[in-house]
Structure formats: structure tokens, C-alpha cells
């Protein structure tokens, strides 16, 4: 495959007409190809709106390419993109253009039948955990999603959220403790 084709594919993937350094075309394509699903997962979990999440990820990728085009040095591309996506999600949440809670009760009632009392009870409890996660302050929720659902190291989350690692650890602990306290209630 030629360099020209690489650039063409990248432009199609990102919808960008931004000139990309030919030498970087393939590397960028690989980077975006591997990170994009994670960006989408994160945005979708924060917004609960797949369509808006797609838009935000697309904009984040364009912003990333624009920064590269201007010659900005981006040391950690994944952190840059995750941070851009998070900030965009926060903007949408602040401006109230998305619904940030999931009607778990509705979902549960329309879900498949589970077998046995024990599974039904577990199902209720898991729904409770889902509700707890939705009610968390945004930074707790972000950290919980990044760690418990996406498996990032605390040092990576710290970079993504512009926080110190001990602060991330503390917030993660508080997020988990909130769930623990609810589960411990009689």
C-alpha cells in the first residue's frame, strides 16, 4: 500500500482533510484504530448516548489531528484523546444536552427472565450498583469507569484526568466505598 493510500484511508476514517505527515500516516492509523473503540466506550458510558458519543469522538480525533498539524508535540496520544473526550462529555452534560441517568428499573423490567430466586436477587443488587455508579460525582464515575470497567493503571488515569496519582487512588477508593456502603445496608 502506498503512502498516498495510507493518508486517504486515514482521511476517510477521521473525516479530516488535514494534511498528515506521510511518514506518520501508518502509525497514526494504527494509533487511532486501537484507541477509537476505547474512546467510544468511555464517551458512551459517560453520556449514555451512542450518537452523541460518536460525534464527540469524531471531534476529538479531528482536534487531535489539528494539533498535530500545527506541530504541537503530544507525548501521550491516548491520554490526550481520552482527556479531550472527557472534557467534551462534561460540556454536554453541563449544558444539559444529554440524559445522564439510565432508567435501570425500566431496563430491568424489560430484561430477560433470570432463573431462580438467588439470580433474581443478584440481578436487583447489580441494578443497585449500576444506579450507584450513575449517581456518583462525575470525577468518581470517570475514575471508576476507567479503572473498573476499562482496566487502566492509576498512573494512566492520572494523566487522562490531569490529577496526581494519590488523588486518583483516593477518589477511586471513595467511589468503591460508596458502593460498598450501599451493599452493606441491611
Amino acid at each position: 500500500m502506498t503512502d498516498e493510500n495510507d493518508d486517504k484511508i486515514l482521511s476517510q476514517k477521521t473525516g479530516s482533510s488535514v494534511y498528515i505527515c506521510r511518514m506518520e500516516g501508518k502509525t497514526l492509523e494504527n494509533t487511532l484504530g486501537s484507541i477509537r473503540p476505547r474512546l467510544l466506550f468511555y464517551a458512551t458510558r459517560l453520556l449514555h448516548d451512542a450518537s452523541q458519543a460518536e460525534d464527540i469522538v469524531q471531534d476529538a480525533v479531528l482536534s487531535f489531528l489539528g494539533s498535530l498539524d500545527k506541530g504541537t508535540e503530544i507525548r501521550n496520544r491516548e491520554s490526550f484523546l481520552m482527556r479531550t473526550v472527557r472534557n467534551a462529555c462534561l460540556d454536554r452534560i453541563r449544558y444539559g444536552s444529554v440524559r445522564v441517568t439510565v432508567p435501570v428499573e425500566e431496563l430491568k423490567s424489560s430484561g430477560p427472565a433470570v432463573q431462580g430466586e438467588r439470580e433474581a436477587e443478584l440481578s436487583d443488587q447489580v441494578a443497585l450498583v449500576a444506579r450507584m455508579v450513575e449517581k456518583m460525582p462525575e470525577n468518581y464515575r470517570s475514575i471508576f469507569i476507567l479503572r473498573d470497567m476499562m482496566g487502566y493503571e492509576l498512573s494512566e488515569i492520572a494523566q487522562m484526568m490531569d490529577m496526581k496519582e494519590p488523588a486518583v487512588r483516593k477518589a477511586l477508593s471513595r467511589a468503591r466505598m460508596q458502593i460498598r456502603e450501599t451493599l452493606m445496608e441491611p
Partner: protein
Amino acid sequence: MDMETKDKHIRRLVDKYFEGRTSLDEEKELSEYFRGGEVREEFRRFAPLFAFRDACAYRQAMPERKSWTRPKAVRLLVAAAAAAAVVCAVVIPRSFSKDHEAETGVISPACMAENLQRVMELGGNGISSLSAKPAGNAALVTATMADGTVKTYIMTCDDGEGSASFIALNE
């Protein structure tokens, strides 16, 4: 490791987990413990949290092709997934033999393979891989789409109608 030592080990990991001090490997070990189904009474209250983590976890773009888990553990996972489900059901015709299912109450590998094949056909080039875990007469199906996104479904079979339903959990 004897039971007492194991309990002590798990207790230490659970405490570390809530303090935010567990490594990713230790968290994986905890998930496997809770997924295993033989959870001590004192830890049972935390099972929903780990079931939620399992049900909602981000899956890598290329999951292992087919992993078989003990039905008991999978039932818990399906219950967990059901609670967090966003439901979108698709029904496809089912024509496979029900002998194995009738005998064991579990979908046979052949039945699952046939259903997955049908899904691949319906999905065209949109699906790059599928994996399934049996759960009694249902199965938890994970589909990796061509664009790298991962979708999870609960596959159930209706013997009366001779059809299989796919309920999307993350759409």
C-alpha cells in the same frame, strides 16, 4: 492453599480493593473468585459489584474465540448483565436439534455454533468475531464488530417457536 488461608488472602484483597490499592492482576483474581460461584458468606455482599464489573467491562477488540465457563458462574454473569441491560431483541429462526438441550438443560456447542453462524451471515462484513459462553438454556454472546466496537447479547431459545432471540446489552 487451604480454605482458611484462601479466605484470609481474599479478605486482604477485598480490603485493598476498597482502599484503591489493588493491582490490575489482583483485581482480576478477585473477579475470578467472585465469578467462580463458591463465595464465602462474609464476601457475598460484594458479589454484585464484581458481577457488574464483569457485565460492563470493556472487551478488547479481539476476544478469545470461545471460552467455556461453568454454568453456575455464567448464570450469575447473565443475571448481572440482565440487570444492566439496554434491551434490543432480534429474533432469528432456529433449526438445530434440541436433543442435547433436552437432556442437559444446556445449549449444546453445535447449537451455539449454528446460531453464531447465522448471526455472522446476518451481520455480513460488519462482524469480525463472535464468542459465546453457555448459561443454562441461554448464552452470553460477545460480538466484535468490524469497527472495533464490542457488543454483548444474551441468546435465548424458544422451543415452542423454534427461534432464538438476541437481546443486546450495550446498545
